[in-house]
């Protein structure tokens, strides 16, 4: 009996936003240095984050921070938790090379023993929802088939019926079903689980308990990761395991995991499911140039996958990232979270436009900084800051320009596809050498000719690369393929010809000491076991240009006048954003309105000159005062004079009369 604690649903996450994504213009970097200190436990990383020693942490990558800590972290006013639904999901591959898992009804019966919603609520506290398809919606676009839903669902009765139908019956009444071919009890199925993930161990225990109720014995075997990899991908002796799939893009996930060519040592087809029809579909997927057809094939595959379930998708992973509010520039990339290439470009200390040092912890040392070797996520965190590819993925994970400012596709009469990449002309390597089409040609041809393991699958069909001029590259592929643009453009890093041509060793094993790339950051230092430092590349082709500081200048007057600001006329009232510094303002000395003439009298600072120069160092309000000027006969004075004359005359007359009397 497994004791389960049912917890309440998590509350929505706060969104960490110092910049809105719409203000990000894909330029950078905004910090002077990125430092990656090695902090080997998530608990210590969290403490370092709380003390301000580091800027953020990926809570759910490599080793999970217990999910129960997340609500507590959310209460910290200095931190924000950002959740991003990823493309990766936990799934249960079933070794179809072995009996009874090679029997479809047996696999379906096992699927009926799993209550995914229950697992999501109790093990993952609702953070990881159940997943319906091997291509979940987080892939973006329209790659996920909306019609595919998990047809199984938790139904022990149905599971029992399926097992009965294939004659796996408990003949001796000991609670364990018997194999009809041998008559013996089913041997316990070994369920391998990575021991560093207690949640997955518990999940396996629940599945085991539920399968036991229908007579399927399962032995949960928490294993060290290396041992697991060996048993699953080399020896293939496992029965069940809990793995994480979800390679991006969608066709890469399907091709890597389900093609029979991958059912070799080191390949990704863990379940060992051989299906010639699937292979044909996948081959067609990788060679079609029609996007709609590609989508239809991917949709079809999802339907088939749910019918034949060589692996049973369980729950979707959600990336939980924690960022400090003392840092500006966090950006969320669809399916990836806040630790994406654009955040590294945009991140800087709070209130700083450009500058400062940002520290992001890593949990183990990268193995290498060689883009031609296979990489873990940790290696990529560093390598992708240093090296660029021809194209990239924007925040929505759509293909965007990078080293190539544009690309075009042409299909020749013989079916050959030619991808033309037009390169940016202002790109330099970190050692100051210019980046040209020769570097691209050399890189791609070398990956093919030297059989660089990590790139070979992406260069399938590529038979020629030409550099007609310094900034144009033509890649010839023997058959049209929509996926080729992504595979070649996004997935292949470009290396400098002037350095790599002198490397005699096998590139896949070569230990790069001082990586030179075109990326936003330059390699500075790697103190293994301590930290790794990258500095901003000041010559980066997407350099950030700080916007000048501006202030608001408000101009007004008691009458409607036209102001002149730095030679440009502005009608009252005026509100302008002007850069910091001196500006000339002037108003006319006289203004006539409706026949009345007005004269400029003074500014708000009492100065009387209608022309003035201001030093703008903050928001400023300026006001001009006018007074009406008298223009016709001075009736006032005339009347006053007449009154005076009249009064004087009256006095004179009275005086004269008195004298006469």
């Amino acid at each position, binding site marked *: 009996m497994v004791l389960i604690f049912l917890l309440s649903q998590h509350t929505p996450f706060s969104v960490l936003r110092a910049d809105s994504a719409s203000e990000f213009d894909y330029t950078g970097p905004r910090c002077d240095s990125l430092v990656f200190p090695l902090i080997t436990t998530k608990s210590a990383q969290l403490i370092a984050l709380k003390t301000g020693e580091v800027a953020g942490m990926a809570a759910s990558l490599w080793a999970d921070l217990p999910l129960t800590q997340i609500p507590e972290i959310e209460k910290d006013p200095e931190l924000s938790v950002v959740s991003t639904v990823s493309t990766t999901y936990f799934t249960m591959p079933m070794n179809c090379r072995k009996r009874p898992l090679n029997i479809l009804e047996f696999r379906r019966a096992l699927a009926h023993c799993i209550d995914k919603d229950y697992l999501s609520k109790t093990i993952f506290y609702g953070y990881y929802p159940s997943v319906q398809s091997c291509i979940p919606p987080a892939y973006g676009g329209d790659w996920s088939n909306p019609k595919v839903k998990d047809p199984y669902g938790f139904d022990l009765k149905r599971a029992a019926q399926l097992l009965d139908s294939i004659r796996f019956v408990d003949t001796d009444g000991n609670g364990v079903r018997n194999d009809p071919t041998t008559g013996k009890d089913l041997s316990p199925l070994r369920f391998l689980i990575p021991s560093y993930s207690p949640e997955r161990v518990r999940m396996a225990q629940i599945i085991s308990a539920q399968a036991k109720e229908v007579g399927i014995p399962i032995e949960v075997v928490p294993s060290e990761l290396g041992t697991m990899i060996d048993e699953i991908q080399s020896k293939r002796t496992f029965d069940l395991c809990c793995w994480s799939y979800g390679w991006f893009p969608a066709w890469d996930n399907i091709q890597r995991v389900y093609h029979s060519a991958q059912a070799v*040592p080191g390949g990704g087809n863990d379940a060992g499911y051989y299906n010639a029809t699937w292979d044909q579909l996948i081959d067609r997927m990788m060679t079609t140039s029609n996007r709609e057809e590609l989508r239809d094939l991917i949709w079809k595959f999802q339907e088939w996958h749910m019918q034949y379930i060589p692996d049973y998708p369980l729950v979707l992973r959600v990336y939980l990232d924690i960022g400090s509010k003392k840092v500006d520039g966090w950006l969320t990339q669809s399916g990836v979270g806040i630790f994406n290439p654009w955040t590294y470009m945009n991140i800087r200390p709070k209130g700083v436009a450009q500058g400062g040092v940002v520290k992001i912890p890593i949990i183990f040392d990268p193995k290498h900084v060689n883009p031609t070797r296979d990489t873990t996520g940790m290696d990529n965190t560093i390598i992708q800051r240093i090296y660029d590819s021809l194209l990239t993925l924007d925040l929505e994970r759509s293909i965007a320009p990078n080293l190539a400012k544009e690309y075009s596709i042409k299909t020749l009469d013989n079916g050959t596809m030619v991808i033309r990449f037009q390169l940016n002309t202002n790109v330099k390597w970190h050692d100051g050498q210019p980046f040209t089409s020769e570097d691209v040609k050399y890189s791609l041809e070398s990956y093919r000719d030297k059989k660089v393991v990590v790139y070979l699958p992406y260069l399938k069909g590529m038979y020629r690369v030409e550099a007609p001029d310094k900034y144009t590259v033509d890649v010839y592929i023997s058959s049209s393929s929509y996926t080729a643009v992504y595979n070649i453009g996004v997935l292949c890093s470009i290396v400098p010809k002037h350095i790599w041509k002198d490397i005699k060793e096998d590139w*896949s094993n070569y230990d790069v000491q001082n990586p030179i790339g075109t990326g936003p950051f330059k390699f500075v230092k790697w103190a293994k076991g301590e930290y790794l*430092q990258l500095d901003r590349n000041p010559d980066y082709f997407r350099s950030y240009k700080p916007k000048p500081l501006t202030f608001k200048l408000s101009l007004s007057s008691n009458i409607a006048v036209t102001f002149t600001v730095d030679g440009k006329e502005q009608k009252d009232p005026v509100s302008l954003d002007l850069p910091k510094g001196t500006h000339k303002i002037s108003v006319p000395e006289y203004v006539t309105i409706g026949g009345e003439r007005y004269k400029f009298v003074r500014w708000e600072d009492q100065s009387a000159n209608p022309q003035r120069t201001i030093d703008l160092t903050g928001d400023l309000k300026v006001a001009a005062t006018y007074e009406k000027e008298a223009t016709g006969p001075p009736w006032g004075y005339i009347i006053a004079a007449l009154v005076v004359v009249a009064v004087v005359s009256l006095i004179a007359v009275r005086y004269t009369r008195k004298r006469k009397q």
Partner: protein
Amino acid sequence: MCEVALAMGFREYLARRTVYTLATVFAVITINFLIFRVMPGDPVSILVAENVIRPEMIQEVRRLYGLDLPLWEQYLLYLRNAVSGSFGFSFQYRRPVMEEILDRLPNTIALMGSATVLAIVIGILVGVVSAWKRGKRADITLLVGSLFFHSVPVYWLGILILMLFAYQLRLFPTAGTLSRPPPTEFIPLITDYLNHLVLPMLTITLVLYGTYALITRNTLIDILTQEYVTIARAKGLSKSEIMFRHAIRNAMLPLITTIAVSLGYIVGGAVMTETVFSWRGVGRMIFDSVTSRDYPMLQGAFFIISFSVILANYVADVLYGVIDPRVKY
């Protein structure tokens, strides 16, 4: 004549101990070789699975690391290299094994050495006070404290110390051997290093001191019941004179053995503590090497640790004979 006989006896004892020690070293070397051959997981297949090498290069890699030879030939090659201190090339660090170990050893010795010495001093003091105040409140408090820290999981204690001193009080840094990036000048560099050393050292000291405290206390209690102590009391000697001039000296004997063996374990580091505090030492290197199936590194590390423990035992044996005049050869 008696002295000559004693000297000859000691020489024979020394020779015997030396032979036993060498035999132990040889046995350890052999077990060290075999143990990694029976571990589950083939390092070359892991390299293939991680796409580091092409499947057709498996043979080449096996040849490079001597894994294609018969087991006895691998053993002879290993023996020859072990004697010359060469344990090959590390799979994960891509440098000679000894180079990596020697790079990390100073950090481990600094941490474990300082923590062990501190634990010994504190342990002895606590043990003396505890024995002195036997049965009283002080004794019970110190005893409970010693047992508590001796039993508490070091990982948990490390995190607690981190939370208190690094987070709540902000007195010390959270991780690493030095600041990232470290100071460039000498004095600030040393200060920075010591600053980072405090918390892991505190953790290990707390975990270790209990052993010495309990041994000291129990030995002293036993000694205090001896006849010569009763006579010393009858002679009118003060409590402190009895304790420090008679009792503690005799209590040191079993402690010396424990201390000598502890010092042997210093080079092995403390895996849990080094992991919690991200201290770049041999302990964490061993942990990383286990997960990476870095056989050459593991063999090198285990040999160093075994050798230092054997050596420490040898020194303890010899020292015991010198210190304790009752020991006859």
